[in-house]
């Protein structure tokens, strides 16, 4: 819990007022009249080195911001594909201390690096320590699937001091009051889950996310991105028509898995499938409006 970051005079850091990296991205994309394409991949999947190649591939093929997942033993918000990928990463020696390499990789490739993590991993690493290392690596913000603003005191303080975005989730079930609480405490954007449930691809996306985006904006959110279930260019275009960003996870992860959905595909083949899938989705996002 030691506060390692201090000012030159030895005082704790104050509130950083540096601009939000994701908001800067949204502003730039607004000029092009298109939504952001946000792609997810767990760090360390299928192994630490290949995952860096995969993250780079995603950025090179049109992902604007990358959600770098931190594999966790008990991912309650994730469906089978991401569970399998996380398990493979853990088996192959993924370690949180190395995730900052992935952050640097994404930043160097020109993407906006986000991390998505279940809270215990960050808590265990040390919230202030994480914020310091993440900022130093060029990180933009953290997505917290199981941390609600009400429990986020330590993270709000650390992210304020380090100028990092706080991305909380909302779901179709969320009341207007909850949407307001999340929107007020968010920095960067709000992550709208397109439907109730865990991550995974779906053949159809219902109309409810559009309403949720609208309600969330009304509740005060400046930017709202939609994730969970988007897997095709058509879906991406449809969602991108009304959301500030389209988040794709399982469909990208899938390309690196064998057909059994349990083991990692041959690396070269996987990366080329990932590039193709990214191209396809990027095309959908660019044609959204």
């Amino acid at each position: 819990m030691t506060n390692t970051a201090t000012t030159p005079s030895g005082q704790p850091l104050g509130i950083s007022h540096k601009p939000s990296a994701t908001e800067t991205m949204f502003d730039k994309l607004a000029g092009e009249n298109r939504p952001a394409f946000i792609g997810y991949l767990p760090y360390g999947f299928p192994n630490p080195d290949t995952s860096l190649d995969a993250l780079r591939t995603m950025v090179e093929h049109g992902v604007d911001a990358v959600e770098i997942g931190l594999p966790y033993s008990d991912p309650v918000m994730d469906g089978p594909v991401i569970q399998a990928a996380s398990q493979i990463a853990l088996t192959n020696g993924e370690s949180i201390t190395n995730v900052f390499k992935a952050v640097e990789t994404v930043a160097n490739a020109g993407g906006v690096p986000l991390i998505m993590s279940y809270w215990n991993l960050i808590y265990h690493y040390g919230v202030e320590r994480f914020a310091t290392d993440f900022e130093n690596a060029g990180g933009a913000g953290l997505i917290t699937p199981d941390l609600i603003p009400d429990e986020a005191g330590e993270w709000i303080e650390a992210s304020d001091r380090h100028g990092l975005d706080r991305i909380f989730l909302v779901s179709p079930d969320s009341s207007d009051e909850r949407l307001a609480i999340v929107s007020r405490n968010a920095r960067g954007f709000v992550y709208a889950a397109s439907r109730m449930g865990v991550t995974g691809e779906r053949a159809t996306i219902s109309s409810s996310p559009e309403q949720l985006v609208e309600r969330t904006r009304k509740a005060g959110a400046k930017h709202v991105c939609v994730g969970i279930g988007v897997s095709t260019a058509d879906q991406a275009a449809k969602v991108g028509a009304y959301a500030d960003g389209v988040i794709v996870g399982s469909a990208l992860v899938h390309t690196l898995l064998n057909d059994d959905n349990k083991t990692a595909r041959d690396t070269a083949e996987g990366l080329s499938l990932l590039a193709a899938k990214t191209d396809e989705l990027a095309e959908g996002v660019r044609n959204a409006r």
Partner: protein
Amino acid sequence: MSVLDELVAGALEDQQSRERTVSLEAVKKAALAAPAPIDATRWLKRADGIPVIAEIKRASPSKGHLSDIPDPAALAREYERGGASAISVLTEGRRFLGSLDDLDQVRAAVHIPVLRKDFIVTDYQIYEARAHGADLVLLIVAALDDDTLRHLLALAHDLGMTVLVETHTREEIARAVAAGAKVIGINARNLKNLRVDVRKYDELAADLPDDVIRVAESGVFGAVEVEDYARAGADAVLVGEGVATADDHELAVERLVKAGARVKASETTPLSEHQGPCWGQFGGRYVPEALITALDELERVYEEAKADPEFHKEFMTLQQRYVGRPSPLTEAPRFAALVREKTGLDARIFLKREDLNHTGAHKINNALGQALLVKRMGKTRVIAETGAGQHGVATATVCAMLGLKCRIYMGQIDARRQALNVARMRMLGAEVVEVTLGDKILKDAINEALRDWVTNVKDTHYLLGTVAGPHPFPAMVRDFQKIIGEEAKEQLRDWYGIDHPDAVCACVGGGSNAIGVMNAFLDDDRVNLYGYEAGGNGPESGRHAIRFAPGTGQLGMFQGAKSYLLETDEGQTLDTYSISAGLDYASVGPEHAWLKEIGRVNYSWATDEEAMNAFRDLSQTEGIIPAIESSHAVAGAYKAAADLKAKGYDKAVMIVNISGRGDKDMATAGKWFGYLTDDQAAALDVTGAHGNTVA
């Protein structure tokens, strides 16, 4: 010249220059003519929160420029809307860039107490503060000798103002108290890392009289420091930079106010009536936002039900006529003789017989209570997790009785070692899903249940089986289970003429039977409480489910709550092992974590071997076959007796909670003790009727 000397000299010089324009007499007159001050002491201490003094601060010598604050009145109003209890206005102009003009503007803008913060060393400055409408002034002990401190304090008090007396050391605190200070500012920052240091706070504040208000005055920035100071015992906090430089000042203050209120609520006494969401630092709601609506609904419906006599009536009627409550309290003299033989303690031992409930364990108490809530919420589908199968059976049972659709998640390993319970659940009409993910035990079943809940939360209730998970589960499950201890207490008195036990023993997995039997005794210091975790092959073996012993569990968030957790250096959940499926869990209910932290319950463990020996001991001395889970409490009785003996007891009355019956465990026990021939054991394996102890 120190920084403080320099600041005082400057402030004095500025005061003298003001005095040349406005005489002391004129300032005195204005002070007496000013509207009466607000009694700030009434704003700076409250039972349900930590009052926040929010500061108008443009700069400081240590951090330089902070914020322009062109409109201090507007900022003060934002603070007030955020819930601030007082506004501090720096009026020092040289290094802090404040002014009396700021004070005037703020005074006119808000209805809460206003503090003039300056380097005050003269009568003139005190009168001046009052003349400008201040309700509070700051005096810094380090800048004043004893006589001046006493004099200025008395003058301010005479004018009806409250004085915040700033201190930095124990000596200064003693001087402040001696001078008559009623509100003391305490600086408990560790100068090495500038974090709030609870030990330093304790050291500083230890001898303060109760009627002195303690204001944490340094290093408060955000919720983290407010929580630290509040837990250390501060009554109020003063915050400058953290609110003055925030993007949203109102929200920044609101967060601090909420953080303080949480800490206060988390320390409620009496212990037995604690309602969550936090027990000390433990508990909370570490879950996806998608579950918040359902948890809020559950909390609301439960609160309504608690206040509804009809609900209690229905619950208690079913407890009597369906479950078979009250469960007896059976004296165990032959077992007590064994304990005496081993420990030398002359104990009378009483067994709380939850094994005699319908379905054979305490789990039905909670399953029944929650199922009645499901009806109230109008939901139609129930999901649950189970480890040993007892909670699954209880849930399937009440769902059959109430006509609810039921699905039970069970880790594949547990489903094998408790195959008979799988059959029972299916017989009761429940769908049993074997979970093949992760370690295939209880935690993985809970993960799957949570995923199901996130997806189907509209019509589905998650009937969690223990005092873990997100709020309101820990408090609610405790409430449904506390009947165990309440009955035991009454039975001990009415049946045996004993006023209170000296000790209560229970096993602790998630901890529901333990909380259930202990709750009635939490506020009775005469009762020693003992909780026994699953020791597996012992704490050093790495094969156990001990969360509380040194070197085992660490603080973490798991499946919805902050508690102790078995995890790797990376924060990944560790595999656990126990011969008992029901105790084989990586974390533990947050209330237990708190009871451990405050030292109310003694937690230890029983290994597989100790538990199995106790299983046999109780069976053969009393004709009562306990569940392997409960056998950990029976094994614990020996340890508790030894502990009581060491504490100086010669005689003692002990209650051991027999949370369930051991029929389900006969195959495991038969093999463990070699009561079955190889053929018989093999036959059980072939039919799949029973599992073995699966590692």
